[in-house]
């Protein structure tokens, strides 16, 4: 993949929590409008990778580039303002804000205002459009975030990230704990986002869903990538699936 056309480039990052050495030299690239999936069992460092890119746990060494510009060590709010949206593991909805307040927060002046404009990245999202995309939120617009169901919170977390019009969306296990019907809705949303030219860095435990929508896949094991390639290549690689994604993995793929 040519350097110039990459939206996100991660080059040999090493990330620690205190003395605990978690990411042990990861590199990846992601182009505009692409969905790249990160797979791996619990505790392998998937969330740490997301946190590294978002600036929440900056890597101790290595580079992270957004459209070729380094964002390594930048403040998380600055990274957000440059077009990176976060849909975190566990949703992390603001429980004492209403649905409307949750959605409007990233678009507020104190958050640097909304990005966008005709020739800057994907077409714009606004409150109306987000509510059209997530009808279940429209009915609960004045409810507190803490009063929503898990599925509604997940939709809110995605909608909240969209309100900044990010070029790149970091999604950490968006299907975790959702019913099959809602998992399907999440998958549909990602397809829609891809069509609208948003790139997605997707962490998933639901391997079947991830392989169905991803353009490219990395498998993470104890802080290192042990596989990368298109989904079809992973499906054919029983060894990686069994060793690094577990039995449930190969069952889901089959």
């Amino acid at each position, binding site marked *: 993949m040519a350097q110039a056309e990459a939206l996100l480039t991660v080059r040999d990052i090493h990330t620690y929590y205190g003395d605990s050495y978690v990411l042990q030299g990861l590199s990846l690239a992601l182009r505009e409008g692409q969905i790249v999936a990160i797979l791996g069992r619990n505790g392998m460092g998937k969330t740490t990778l997301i946190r590294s890119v978002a600036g929440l746990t900056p890597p101790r060494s290595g580079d992270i580039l957004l459209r070729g510009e380094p964002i390594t060590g930048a403040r998380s*709010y600055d990274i*957000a303002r440059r077009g990176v949206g976060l849909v*975190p593991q566990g949703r992390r909805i*603001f429980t004492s804000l209403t649905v409307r307040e*949750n959605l409007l927060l990233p678009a507020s002046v104190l958050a640097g205002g909304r990005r966008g404009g005709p020739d800057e990245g994907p077409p714009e999202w606004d409150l109306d459009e987000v509510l059209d995309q997530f009808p279940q939120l429209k009915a609960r617009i004045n409810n507190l975030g803490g009063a929503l169901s898990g599925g509604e919170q997940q939709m809110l977390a995605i909608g909240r990230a969209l309100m900044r019009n990010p070029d790149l969306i970091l999604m950490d296990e968006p299907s975790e704990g959702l019913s099959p019907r809602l998992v399907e809705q999440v998958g549909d949303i990602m397809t829609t986002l891809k069509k609208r030219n948003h790139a997605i860095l997707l962490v998933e435990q639901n391997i079947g869903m991830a392989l169905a929508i991803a353009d490219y896949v990395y498998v993470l094991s104890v802080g290192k990538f042990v596989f990368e390639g298109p989904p079809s290549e992973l499906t054919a690689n029983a060894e990686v699936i069994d060793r690094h994604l577990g039995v449930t993995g190969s069952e889901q793929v089959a």
Partner: protein
Amino acid sequence: MSFIIQTINGLSLAALLFLLSAGFTLTFGLMRVVNLAHGALYLIGGYVGLSVVWTTDNFWLGIVAGGFFVVVLAALIDRFLIRPTGENHLAQVLLTVGVAIVIADIALAIWGGDNLRVPTPEMLRGPIFLPGDIIYPRYRFVLILFGLAAAVIMWVLYRRTQIGAIVRAGVDDREMASALGININLLFALVFAVGAFLAGVAGVVGGAFLTLYPGVEWEILILALVVVIVGGLGSLEGAIVGSVIVGLIDAYGRWLMPEMSYFVIFAPMAVLLLVRPTGIFGQEH
């Protein structure tokens, strides 16, 4: 009759306590910073206001000057002392105690050790006649209205505006707010400034009936601490309700059990904490 007067006494203290505890509790909610210099901000705000009233003979100017002086002072404390300590909250506690002592010593050198009363304007002096033949100092009655107005304004800002929603989001999950583009340090500086302004204003309006003297910064800080612990650390509603509770208990305690006035405040607090460790409105952090 005395009961009603003591109730009004309690409410006027509550008004003062709210001005002090609102900033304290939001500062904690947002950044987990326990600013033990908050009482000293009250003290120095009061003294600066006093000097301005002495020189200009304008009480209102004194209030504004006390408030803004403390905003500037607090901004310096935040930028050069609290901020470099990062997330080391124990260091912040010790540091702000030191800051409080330094501020109080400087105040002692400038204004001396006597009880000084901030002079009130003519229109706020004298008695007010309330229904039921109750005669009450006009100033303290107006203070209740002032505190009520401050509480309403703060509540509306916090619950009904976008900037309030952002502060609430920061209290809920600071890291997530930052990941959505909120400059959390700027937000904290803003909240710290508002809290400091209210503390400085409290020093001037409080100095007009409690007087200003060395040591008042700790007496008032302890009451404010009880307010935020009872109400729930980090909660504005908690600061409002806690102020009323502590103000009333303090007034009734001084009236009915004058020799035990601290016990009367701390005993109910201890019982409440046993039943509800987070305080009335507090959430787990």
